[in-house]
């Protein structure tokens, strides 16, 4: 055994070790469960409050909405525990109205999550705000409604930026496709497929249980890893000859995954279509950005004439395989334990 291949092995082992250290963080990163606060004006200056407090592994995150000082509660809050959130309802009277008042989510600074705030005014106007840890309060404004709708676009981009499993799947596809035309077909069929299921899941309220879904998404990544190795060895398979088939089939799965990100917000009926569209566009923006990044880097490597050593060439396939396997085992275990 040559020194070079020993070095290669050491690097691969070190890499696996580093991955094992990072994995818990990566696994957490995907669980983007935003909070949702809705105020509906039922009578002049009277509001129905719906507060979906996100939970992590069954424990509610310590997030508390702080309403404007001029508002008073009309009844004691009632709570209900759902699988992914803790729902609170109460009625609020705000004699001074809500315009220009400040709404704060206390404790948001401490968590890596967002809270979506949605106010339905008595005259049908709707305003939406997305609060982030860096800026946990918002001044409610009469005129902010139109601008607020773009928050769904931001949410879509964020969902893909933090959805490392989705990005890894796209990376796997990119490693398999050979030429530009196949690339376009593959990415398009992935996009079409996940848009279909995202729309079905959201519009028809088809609910796919989260645990098996996440396990299946992890499995889709694990599935791609040996295919990448096959490409590298010059072998062929159905996946390599027709990657768009695989992209479409698994794209349907990933679409349900995207839908869970949107569904956690509990969208109201009359706003579903634009929200869905913007969220989907956001997801595509993020995904295309990632595709261009990978292609740009690959081109640059070719210009710079880099000859990667064997272990470095295998690294992406190992990453896909290791993470795919880890996530599959982790998610299946969680499913059984629950």
């Amino acid at each position, binding site marked *: 055994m040559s020194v070079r291949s020993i070095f290669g092995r050491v690097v691969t082992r070190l890499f696996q070790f580093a991955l094992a250290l990072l994995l818990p963080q990566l696994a957490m*990163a995907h669980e983007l469960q935003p909070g949702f606060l809705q105020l509906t004006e039922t009578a002049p200056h009277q509001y129905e409050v719906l507060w979906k407090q996100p939970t992590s592994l069954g424990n509610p995150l310590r997030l508390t909405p702080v309403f404007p000082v001029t508002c008073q509660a009309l009844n004691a809050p009632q709570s209900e525990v759902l699988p992914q959130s803790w729902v609170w309802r109460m009625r609020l009277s705000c004699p001074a109205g809500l315009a220009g008042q400040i709404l704060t989510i206390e404790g948001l600074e401490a968590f890596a999550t967002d809270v979506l705030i949605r106010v339905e005014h008595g005259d049908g106007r709707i305003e939406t705000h997305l609060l982030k840890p860096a800026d946990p309060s918002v001044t409610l404004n009469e005129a902010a409604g139109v601008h607020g709708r773009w928050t769904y676009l931001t949410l879509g981009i964020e969902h893909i930026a933090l959805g490392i499993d989705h990005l890894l799947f796209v990376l796997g596809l990119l490693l398999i496709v050979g030429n530009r035309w196949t690339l376009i077909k593959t990415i398009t069929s992935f996009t079409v497929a996940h848009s279909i299921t995202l729309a079905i899941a959201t519009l028809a309220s088809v609910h796919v249980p989260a645990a098996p879904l996440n396990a299946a998404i992890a499995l889709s990544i694990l599935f791609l890893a040996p295919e990448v190795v096959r490409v590298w060895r010059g072998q062929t398979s159905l996946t390599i000859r027709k990657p768009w088939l695989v992209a479409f089939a698994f794209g349907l799965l990933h679409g349900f995954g995207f839908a869970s990100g949107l569904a956690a917000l509990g969208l109201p009926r009359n706003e579903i279509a634009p929200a869905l569209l913007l969220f989907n566009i956001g997801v595509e923006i993020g995904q295309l950005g990632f595709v261009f990044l990978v292609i740009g880097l690959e081109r*640059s490597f070719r210009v*710079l004439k880099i000859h990667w050593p064997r272990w470095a060439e295998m690294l992406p396939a190992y990453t896909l395989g290791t993470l795919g396997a880890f996530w599959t085992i982790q998610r299946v275990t969680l499913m059984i334990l629950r």
Partner: protein
Amino acid sequence: MLVVLGVLPLPSAAHLVSTGLGPIYDGIGHFFLSLEDLLPLLALMTLGGLNGVAAGRRIMFVLPSAWLIGGILGSLIAVGTIVPAYVAPLMAIMLGVMVATDAQLPERVLTGVIGIVGSASGLTTGIALATQTNNLQLILGSAIALCVLATAVPALVIVAATSRPWMRIAVRVLGSWIAGVGLLMLGWQVRIS
């Protein structure tokens, strides 16, 4: 990327960005918005591209490594030390002039320059971020952004500079602009101090 840049609120002094996507993404944002530190690095990457494929490869591998070492070192040094503000403009002037004159450096000299500039730049950022709680993750994010740039910029310059003669001139003009901005920044430092 542009969309993200456009909507980000910028705290003017510290350049600390909150993308809402965690410290790694915050680090990436910080890197792209710290223009005065970015300027000498861009000039160096361009210089690498002008020096050919082997030099470009050197930029890609050595620059991020040197930067990361400097960055981690900077965050370990006690808070209170600062890298003088004229370091970045001086490096921008030096490297910008090299780009403008299309300087062809021997391999060893180039490696030395990459090491010095990279670690000095990393040190500046590391010290600037030392007070942040997530500083190591911020530095890691910045280093990731640097890796991407240090791969893409030399490759772009190589493609541009070897395709048409006027493109090479355009790259050199960019170098003189960077040196010019560095000179003005230096004058600005003198003026406000």
